[in-house]
């Protein structure tokens, strides 16, 4: 145990409420459910916790076809069938055909690991319910070999959700819940500083103003988020754009350079260009 409190890392800015959430989840060994706008660093949080606390990280990415069983273990009946027809010796031990899932691996870890269950809302609606006992007691039963697998150390479990499905109440009751709010201008400046420490001050100020202006455009399908801002700044740096280029007479009258990095949706780009066009005409 090197460090027990999480306070953000040199690559990740954590707000006080997020720090509290992580530390409470670690101390009380409760799974932490993270929600928030896409691109606010939900998935990255697990990596940062693992590196800050120096724990191994196990990632379990959920797809629409994922079953809770996949995280525990799978019985590879096809190989066993093939082996039996080839007359292999190992076919007699069913253990050879049990494939461990991410949860099992995390349970076996020598030190307390961090387990990320990413985008749990992608899975079937019953998925979280099937994991209740496993997350509560940190143990499960392997029917094929009749053994009970119990976690050596209760893993620090992080669960992310994009709100595509409602999660069952019984599941929510067992978790701590944190909603990552979209960062305010001040936090945003810190985040950008962390990623691009030698960014010129004027460029950053201009970029942030433009960014928040774009976010305020009414009717956007997908508002640009933190990760889009970082990409955009990377582009601005690579193209060596001077801060003056971002500063029109009126931010509403000029299309920001390289806006493709901020707006990811054809309709949004159209809408934005239209608004700019209208504003320009009205200004004349």
């Amino acid at each position, binding site marked *: 145990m090197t460090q027990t409190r999480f306070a953000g890392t040199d690559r990740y800015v954590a707000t*006080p409420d997020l720090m509290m*959430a992580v530390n*409470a989840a670690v101390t*009380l060994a409760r799974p932490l459910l993270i929600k928030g706008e896409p691109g606010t660093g939900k998935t990255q949080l697990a990596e940062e916790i693992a590196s800050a606390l120096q724990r191994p990280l196990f990632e379990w990415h959920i797809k629409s076809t994922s079953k809770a069983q996949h995280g525990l273990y799978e019985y590879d009946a096809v190989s*066993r*069938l093939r082996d039996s027809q080839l007359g292999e010796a190992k076919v007699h031990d069913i253990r050879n055909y049990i494939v461990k899932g991410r949860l099992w691996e995390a349970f076996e870890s020598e030190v307390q690991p961090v387990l990320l269950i990413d985008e749990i809302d992608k899975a079937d609606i019953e998925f979280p319910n099937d994991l209740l006992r496993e997350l509560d007691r940190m143990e499960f039963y392997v029917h094929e070999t009749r053994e009970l697998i119990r976690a050596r150390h209760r893993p620090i479990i992080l669960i992310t959700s994009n709100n595509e499905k409602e999660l069952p*109440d019984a599941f*929510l009751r067992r978790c701590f*819940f944190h909603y990552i*709010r979209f960062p305010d201008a001040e936090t945003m400046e810190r985040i950008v500083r962390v990623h691009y420490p030698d960014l010129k001050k004027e460029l950053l100020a201009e970029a942030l103003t433009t960014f928040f202006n774009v976010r305020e455009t009414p009717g956007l399908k997908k508002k640009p988020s933190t990760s889009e801002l970082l990409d955009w700044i990377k582009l601005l740096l690579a193209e060596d754009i001077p801060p003056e280029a971002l500063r029109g007479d009126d931010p509403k009258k000029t299309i920001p350079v390289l806006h493709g990095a901020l707006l990811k949706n054809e309709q949004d780009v159209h809408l934005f260009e239209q608004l700019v066009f209208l504003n320009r005409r009205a200004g004349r």
Partner: protein
Amino acid sequence: MLVRFFTDLRAGGVPVTLPEFLSLLEGLEARLAALSPEDFYYLARLALVKDERHFDRFDRVFAEHFAGAEKVFERITAELPPEWLQQLAERLFSEEEKRQVASLGGWHQLLETLRQRLREQQGRHEGGNKWIGTAGTSPFGNRGFNPEGVRIGPSAARHGRAVKVWEAREYRNLDATRELGTRNIKMALRRLRRFAREGAPEELDLDGTISSTARNAGILDIRMQAERRNAVKLLLLLDVGGSMDPHVQVCEELFSAARSEFRHLEYFYFHNFPYEKLWKDNRRRFSEITDTTTLLRTFNADYRVVFVGDATMSPYEIEQPGGSVEHWNDEAGSVWMRRIAAHFPRLVWLNPEPEEHWKWTPSIGLTRELIGDRMFPLTLDGLDRAMSELKRRGVSKTQEQK
């Protein structure tokens, strides 16, 4: 100690359960939130609230409950440092005024009054008014004291910010009882989704084949299953024009959200109330029309029908033949509505008007009567109720009614 807070939360509409409350106490015992109201607020929210839609309600209850309790934290942390007061005085008061202050009962007295004043200001602010100067009523106001410009020493400044965290009510937009945005609507319509396997078994069930082959000692045993498809069929009937104009935006959001959710989704428009004609394209509403009888014939009873409209009109438009504001209708709207309701057993009406206004509009009462009181407000909460209503009525009941 916090039991009253717990019951207040439940009364305030935050669904808190006992295990969650116990885990908050556990967290307090583990000293996760020591001596700072901010930390306590974060910890309590983390442990007790499991949905961002409830954040706003939680904030409100929290602010109300701990309005007086901040003092406890003040006492625990530290008394306001005297240097702060000195500094504040330097900044705010002239020499002469300082002498006057001394005559008021000294610095300690001043501090108390100031605290009280600040608290009052917050109270009023919370009530929705702008921060106001207290000129003429206090030893501060008449000397140009501006509460907004004052920063109270380290501990209290933090306290001030903490209060703001839950008084800012940043999560108001996520509250379920608010009107709908696209995201909320999507969430609620998903409730309608029901995956069901129906139709002929035409897909290879790989897992089933493997396990049954393995069980069959290696002799191939192929299993088939039906394709998985969304079985929910939806018929949307939207009110356009007239009194619905302010709600068109909301309706369109509902409509666009709905479109991606269902395999079978049909939509028709009507104006104010459904009569013998409906139309699909609002621009060509007079040329391309669909007879309501055709609608009843084409769509069978397992379609779920959702009306969206404010049902706000003159009662004549519902009850009288020829009552329509646009054309002569031979049969009254209520006759058509009864026909539709009889044909589609699973039917709801979503009304964008706030629920508490309904009883003041006679036409809303009439409509509710016609559809068997299945009108719900166009909020997330109302949608939830509407969707469970749609689910509740089984097909078996359809046959009974016929």
